[in-house]
């Protein structure tokens, strides 16, 4: 578990390093995820027990990790008071619209593909 967590941090730091050196407009964590995925694919073996345990352990609490940032909403009460219909409307409708159209698009495209293979 400990060495697994260390591996996650190592890939995170590798991601940060790459972002810094190549001046990428991306967060280090996303690049770190891509690097870890690349490494796992290149090795072509199941992730070691330690890494697996650390990953499942931390992902189990994924939703908790958003709470402190979310509480930051109290910094914007004034703006929300002024603009809440627009902000809330955008959040609700745009999000559900994206879910619906993404779902429909992927289903349509993957069905075509399956049909083409058969």
């Amino acid at each position, binding site marked *: 578990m400990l060495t697994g967590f260390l591996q*996650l941090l190592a*890939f995170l730091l590798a*991601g940060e390093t790459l972002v810094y050196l190549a001046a990428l*407009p*991306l*967060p*280090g*964590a*996303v690049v*770190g*995820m*891509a690097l*870890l*995925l690349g490494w796992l*694919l290149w090795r072509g073996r*199941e992730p070691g027990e330690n890494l*697996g345990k650390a*990953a499942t352990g*931390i*992902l189990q609490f*994924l*939703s*908790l*990790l*958003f*709470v*402190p*940032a*979310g*509480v*930051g*909403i*109290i*910094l914007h009460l004034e703006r929300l008071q002024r*603009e809440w*219909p*627009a*902000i809330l*409307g*955008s*959040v*609700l*409708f*745009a*999000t*559900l619209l*994206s*879910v*619906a*159209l*993404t*779902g*429909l*698009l*992927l*289903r349509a*495209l*993957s069905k*075509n*593909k399956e049909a083409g293979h058969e």
Partner: protein
Amino acid sequence: MNERLLGLWAHLQTLPVFWLALTLGVFHLASLLAKRTRGFPLANPVGLSILALSLLLYFTGTSYARYFAGGQWIHFLLAPATVALAVPLYQQKERIHCLLKPLLLTLAGGSLLAIVASVGIGWALGASPSSLLSLAPKSATAPVAMGIVEKLGGIPSLTAAVVILTGITGAVGAPWVLDRLCIREPAVRGFAMGLASHGIGTARAFQESEQTGAFAGLGMGLNALMTAVLVPLLYRIFA
């Protein structure tokens, strides 16, 4: 006695560990409540916890900076958790490989739609330009969205709040929308939830199945990359 209690409060609220413990405790209670009221979609643990903690800070007059001195110990784990998403993704590699082309096409369309719909609806309802910029990357995961907005001169902490509201909307509303559309394939459900509502939607998708969660992680990761490319590009063209 009362004075001593007030003194104790004054002391405790200066300790980061107090806010750390409170966040964990509130989240635990919110999760229990969500389990108890199974099927009631508004009982989302993230949303309930944020609401309870915000009210507490508001009524005790505690600054966000003081709260975050404790909250940051949880917040910091977001980055290694994002890296950890590579593990469930790797375990779905065969399924991803055979769906690669539809996934990438859907990513391009879905990511563009999420940005255009956010800004368009916000604009139609009269949001100010700085709010519109903060709304644009709201389907991408919080650190990405905040980074994009910061580079373009928007308000990162407003983006964080909007991104999390988006995640909660997806976690609560997406399963319902997908059921209405009779979309049952775990890969499709997961990808749509992760693309539109990032990590909070992904956490919700893992509750449906491991496969749904892995595709949600894929949708979230790919949309983070796509949004980081598209928002600055669209901003340059239209703003």
